[in-house]
């Protein structure tokens, strides 16, 4: 699932740390960042950048455990969108 456009990135990453399983940011090219890692989080917020230029638009959030999608749902676009 993709991140909502106006999602609070810091709050999302803080909650991702508390998720039961790993939470990944996967680019459209197939590269991955494990968002439980501090360094990954820094790279992620750097990529968030300005709204129009955000590299996060070209990737999606992948949760190792399905229940974490619900845990993080306020930040994620619904599956239908």
């Amino acid at each position: 699932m993709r991140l909502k456009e106006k999602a609070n990135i810091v709050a999302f990453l803080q909650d991702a740390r508390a998720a039961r399983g790993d939470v990944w940011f996967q680019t459209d090219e197939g590269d991955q960042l494990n968002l439980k890692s501090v360094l990954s989080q820094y790279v992620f917020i750097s990529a968030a950048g300005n709204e129009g230029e955000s590299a996060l638009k070209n990737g999606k959030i992948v949760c190792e455990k399905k229940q974490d999608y619900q845990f993080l749902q306020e930040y994620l676009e619904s599956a239908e969108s």
Partner: protein
Amino acid sequence: MEHLEFRVSVMGELLIAAHHLYNWKLEPDFEYIYGHCPEKEFFYNLFQLSSSSRTIKEHFQHSEMPIICADRVGIGWIAQFHEGAYYLLGPFFTMDASETYIRNICYEAKFPSSLVTSFLVHLSLLPVIHIQNAMDYAVMLYRCLYGITPRKNDVEISFEEGVSAEAESWSSGTWHGTFQAERKMVEAIKKGDLEAFNEIARGLSGAQIGKLAGMGDALRQTKNSGIVFATIISRAAMEAGVSSEGAYNLSDYYIQKIEGSRFVSDTQHIVEEMTYAFFQRIRHVTANLSCSRAVRIAAEYIETHLREKISLDEIAKEAGYASYYLSGKFQKEMGESINSYIRRRKIELAKELMWEGRKTAVDIAEELCFSSPSYFAATFRKYTGMSPTEFIDKKENAGS
């Protein structure tokens, strides 16, 4: 309040101009008030995510003193809480982290290169601030806010355990300064040129001579740097003409003091003291170059054993001459008797030790092997025109 913010603003501008060290003000819950920093949204988010924000909050629940903290990738912050707000300086790289280090970690972890590039561009804005300088800035920040200068020992240091440091090429561009700068420093030591040495050392202040400890142990790092420097300076002193026994004794003395220190600032003072002591030794050696070899050996022996009871027989044996012959030669070339020279040099050392303010006159008399405190006081008066107490009072009045 306006006056306070003006002071903070001036200090902030000066630190940005001198070191690209940025400043921030945040609410108690870390809500943003202001930040004078390029890419402030990124760095503000980074601060909120880093362990440093939690460390800072916990620290000021029980302390009013400034804190320097760094997260596990070595990005540091200086913080002070005052009248309901956090004042921060940073972010900056601590000595153990660098742009190159983090780049290597990112590549080893196979982070997407398109994302890493943006991240590294942000990091290129950060200065490298050595822990000793960071402590100075923490003291400055506290002074700016409270109007009182805290002791460096009261600055809390909290560095989180680092990410894997297995990659060998993780040194910053400022690491070890440059080899050539260190060689110049050695040349300045050999010539006894303290001014040139200090200038080169200032240029190397972003570097570190001999990193042997891992992240998270600033005291051990500082001690290791001091010990490595003791080796360098003692070798240079020997090349300048100081006897090997004298150089080794001096470096051993200070290495023991360094190992016994409990605070980073104390270790720094000891290294400064050691530097000064070596330069004094080198100056004495070079000042006596016009004297005969026997007299130079005698003077060097006295310098090496100033903290002991020295006998003419020992000196003569060292110089390889009979006592009566050496006495006459010494008097002729140095303009005073050996015993007078010994007493004068001990008193000069006593003055330096008293000026430091860490020992009493009685302790110093014992350290320099005077037969009694009263004899020390009488000798002190003879060579300085004042008693030890008067000297200490004069020093305290000079400092007030």
